[in-house]
């Protein structure tokens, strides 16, 4: 099979076209969210939230409700429990995040195991493009449009509160409300990734492209551009590779996103080291 066949043949199938559209949508929204999650040091919370949301997703699946609404309710409940532990019981924040996230995750695993389909847990955690329906595509694209629109509208506020939350409060910004809005947007992104790459791998798509962008980008806009490009490369290449090699899609996409972090690190740091050594060689040659 030639290269063009390798690239186009999978999309002869409707399920692959649906999976591609849903994956591309998530690969745009997740890295964009990730830039803010990384900048605001919310990576651990995002990871814990993806685990905790399983309880809501499982509950919704059991009662036949919307997985999105279930996931969002679990995310909001998680934020509430964490606040209670931190404010009322004075538990350290990272401890509260770990306890609540893992507790809800355990509840979710039990909930998923109660369903008739035993493979459902793996689908929720790691995704399965074979299961992407037309309705899923519509939901995913809608979620992504909402996520990107909200992030664009909130950009000045997110920038102000990320750089200096205390000052932002003095000019009348409601920092808690902005934090909450970002958490809702993050949870919507994780839910959007549920059917294609799974809730756990969706977090990788949030974090890894943002880390790549942080190493290579020298401005906020450059970070967004690099993160989204990195996410799209991982998504499309991961989908094709998983199809041809018979690998699970979610982990393949996630691994490619992580591999880009390694490439970016090699690109950014040795390049600087070589540059420094060249400058020092020139300086010593000039001295002689």
């Amino acid at each position, binding site marked *: 099979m030639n290269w063009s066949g390798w690239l186009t043949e999978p999309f002869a199938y409707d399920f692959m076209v649906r999976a591609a559209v849903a994956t591309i949508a998530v690969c745009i929204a997740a890295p964009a969210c990730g830039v803010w999650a990384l*900048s605001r040091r919310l990576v651990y919370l995002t990871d814990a939230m993806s685990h905790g949301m399983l309880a809501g997703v499982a509950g919704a699946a059991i009662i036949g409700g919307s997985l999105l609404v279930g996931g969002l309710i679990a995310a909001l409940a998680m934020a509430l429990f964490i606040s209670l532990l931190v404010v009322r019981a004075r538990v350290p924040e990272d401890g509260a995040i770990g306890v609540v996230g893992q507790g809800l995750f355990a509840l979710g695993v039990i909930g998923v195991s109660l369903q008739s389909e035993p493979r459902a847990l793996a689908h929720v955690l790691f995704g399965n493009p074979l299961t992407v329906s037309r309705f899923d595509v519509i939901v995913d694209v809608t979620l992504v449009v909402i996520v990107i629109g909200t992030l664009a*509208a*909130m950009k*000045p*506020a997110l*920038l*102000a509160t*990320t*750089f*200096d939350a*205390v*000052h*932002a*409060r*003095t*000019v*009348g*910004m*409601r920092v808690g409300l*902005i934090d909450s809005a970002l958490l809702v947007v993050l949870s919507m992104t994780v839910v959007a990734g549920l059917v294609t790459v799974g809730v756990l791998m969706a977090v990788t798509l949030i974090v890894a492209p943002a880390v790549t962008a942080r190493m290579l*980008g*020298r*401005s*906020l806009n*450059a*970070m967004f551009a690099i993160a989204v490009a990195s996410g799209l490369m991982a998504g499309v290449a991961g989908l094709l590779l998983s199809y041809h090699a018979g690998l699970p899609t979610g982990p393949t996409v996630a691994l490619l996103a992580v591999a880009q972090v390694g490439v970016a690190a090699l690109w950014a740091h040795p390049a600087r080291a070589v540059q420094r050594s060249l400058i020092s060689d020139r300086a010593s040659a000039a001295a002689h």
Partner: protein
Amino acid sequence: MNRHATPVLETRRLSVTYGRRCALQPTDLAVWPGEAVAIVGRNGSGKSSLLRALCGIEPAARGEVVLHAESCHHTARTVEVAYVPQRSEARWDLPFSVGQVVAAGRTRNRWWRRGSRGDRDAVDTALAAVDLDDLGDRAVSELSGGQAQRVLLARALVQQPDVLLMDEPLAGLDLETVDTVLALIQRLTVGDLAVCCVLHEVDIARGSFSRVVALSGGAVVADGPAASVLDADGIESIFLRRVAA
């Protein structure tokens, strides 16, 4: 006698507590337009609590902050009072541009609003006021300490405030940069802008500020012209003797 009829900012029996600990005892203070006030005292004397209560970050346990004698604010959370925090409180590691950070002073509570032409002009004016007009596009992660301090000052000026509250603006700066920041502060107070600075540098407070407010044990123990508050006896009583809280 001050040429203005009313102070721009006042505290009336303002106190701040953290749990059971009283960080600032009931305090009456008036700041007049164009004044350069240095707030001095040992660590834990209540300087930062006073400053933070003045700009509304710390809620007043009792009393109030009064702006322009008319509008009463328990929390003076208004753009007319601009706060310049310590540099260490901000995220200088991120690739935000200087212009974006300064524009944050105009964001206010209308977060969905795009910056208008007026906002962009205000940012340019504020950057020019602190001599950073060429650095609007530079990432804040690439700034020196002195440039970073001036960015925070520009972010406050873009609010077009009546009062500037600065928390240790000279900490960690070299002598040349200290002179630059002091010259900026003096230039700003030529008009009606009042500046209140929490300082640890006694010599600078005495030499560059018209008025000094000294705190000890959460109470104002001296308030007046810098030369008289910070004479030898004054320095001893402020920094060496303990005052019963």
